[in-house]
């Protein structure tokens, strides 16, 4: 059974289709990239999976169990987490608190315990803090630990957002253009982090990214979207050879683009 099954998803906005009959699957442990030109529907697809948009047709299932009727916060408890194309941090909170909120769905204590801050609440806070520190070490965020997230440089904010998604200890992480706006060095770091998340932390990755070099390098499987429908699915090399894909990306003119 696949970790995530997307079958026949159709999503329309006032009659305009953003997604048309999109299907793909992600196996446990994979890195799957979703690529396509601007406006192809990549973000819309992630929004359908994470629960922000409700598709008109089709089904999305984790471990074969449909999640479409679940609210976004319930899906997080199922092991889903994500980052956003435009940074969506809690700007007024410290980096540490941002990551601690990331663990929200793992923390099991209520209002009264928290107000007394004895016993269970305190033990849990310490325990979760330890896990969050692992993420901070992994992403090299320790110099920023107590700084307000909204005032950090762009590249660091992107990393904090990745950290927040990772702090939830997800099984499947959805990354919406994590390298957008980064320089070469930052892009390479981010690619390294994604590989480590996948290999060391054992997290399955669904990556949306425009940087073809990175996509072709690190993906196990690539799904190409164009105008809301799937153009091609397959291993990076296969997709690179695909006539339709080349045509869609380049208007059939320049074939070197996909090949690096």
């Amino acid at each position, binding site marked *: 059974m696949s970790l995530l099954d997307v079958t026949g998803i159709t999503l329309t906005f006032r009659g305009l289709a953003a997604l048309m009959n999109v299907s793909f699957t992600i196996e446990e442990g994979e890195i799957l990239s979703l690529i396509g030109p601007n406006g192809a529907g990549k973000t819309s697809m992630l929004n359908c999976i994470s629960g922000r948009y409700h598709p008109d047709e089709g089904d999305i299932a984790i471990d074969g169990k449909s999640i479409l009727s679940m609210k976004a916060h319930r899906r997080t408890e199922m092991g889903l987490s994500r980052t956003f194309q435009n940074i969506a*941090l809690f700007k007024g909170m410290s980096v540490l608190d941002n990551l601690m909120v990331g663990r929200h769905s793992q923390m099991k204590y209520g209002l009264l315990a928290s107000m007394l801050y004895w016993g269970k609440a305190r033990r849990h806070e310490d325990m979760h803090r330890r896990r969050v520190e692992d993420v901070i070490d992994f992403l090299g965020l320790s110099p920023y630990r107590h700084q307000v997230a909204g005032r950090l440089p762009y590249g660091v904010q992107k990393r904090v957002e990745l950290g927040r998604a990772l702090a939830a200890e997800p099984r499947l992480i959805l990354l919406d253009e994590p390298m957008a706006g980064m320089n070469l060095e930052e892009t390479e770091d981010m690619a390294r982090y994604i590989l480590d998340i996948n290999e060391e932390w054992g997290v399955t990755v669904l990556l949306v990214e425009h940087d073809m070099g990175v996509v072709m390098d690190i993906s196990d499987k690539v799904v190409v979207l164009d105008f809301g429908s799937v153009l091609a699915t397959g291993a990076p090399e296969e997709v690179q050879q695909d006539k339709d894909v080349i045509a869609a990306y380049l208007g059939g003119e320049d074939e070197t683009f996909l090949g690096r």
Partner: protein
Amino acid sequence: MQNKCGQFFTSYRQENRLFKTWFERFWLLVLFVGLILYPLCFDSYVLQLCMINIAIIAAVSLNVLTGACGQISLGQGAFVGVGAYAGVWFVQSGAAMLPEWMFVVFGGPFIPAILCGGLVTALVGMFFGIPSLRLKGIYLAIATLAAQFILEYVFLHWKSVTGGHSGMAVPAPEIFGYTFDTYPRMFYLTLACAVLMVYLATNLMRSKPGRAFVSIRDHHLSAEIVGVNLFWYKLQAFAVSAFMAGVAGGLWAHTARYLTPSPTFGIGLSISYLAMIIIGGLGSVLGAVYGAIFISVLPICLDLLAELVGGFFPELATPIKATKGGVFGLVLMLFLIFEPEGLAHRWRLIKAYWKLYPFAH
């Protein structure tokens, strides 16, 4: 990990302590000794000090809801009113409803009544918090304004409970046979309650629900993605906030010893609580404390000033008294212009400066 120059933490628990250094603990102790000695040495302004304690509780309650969770409430004054009437009702007519063991454990009906008053207010707060699922910002403000007017109407017209226009007298509270019938005694009682509430709110804000509240304020879409149940947490914010406001109301009733609905719990009170948290610093518990003290003390200082000036120039006394309201507004405005992030922020800056002393850079 490092805090002050040369101070390192060896465990997360140590870092999470509220008062991290002996220095902080020492000055806190000095503050409380001073507060405890004050009514023994002086007898003016004790009632005002009681009211400051109560204002602190109410401002902290509003800062949890509006400052931290971002849900604007223009009905906090009325929530305090609900707590006042409910608290008094539970001491008198409602006492029969309370279980026997509560009287034994808490030494009489007063403490259970205050708690039940808080719970009733929490329910009322949750009810008026339901629109927050759909409404944000200014629209929610209008919805809570409606709550304010509805509750004021109830205070005026539910005569059997509130005494209507003419109001009603409130007996002095009694705990384990000790009667709190003077202002100094009430001062100690309200101070203890204020300390307790500030402590509870601080804990709340540094753990899971507090962080969830702030996440809703900062970015409600990501809040949902990290697993925060928006509706449930907004309701919890309303409940906690209204509970504390209710406790403040119960104490108010028993300090003033006489309740009239309007203008006591009117829109003016709601707005003054908002002023307190804005001046003090939105979202910070200590900020609410500073704001409550500042807003309560400022008019007293202006009065003193008027008296002082009036002593030297008697002909100026009346015009100064007349312009007091304007001066009050002016000070608030200047404050917002020059200290837009609130007193708590200024305090942090001062502390940050001294942290590195003498190596300021």
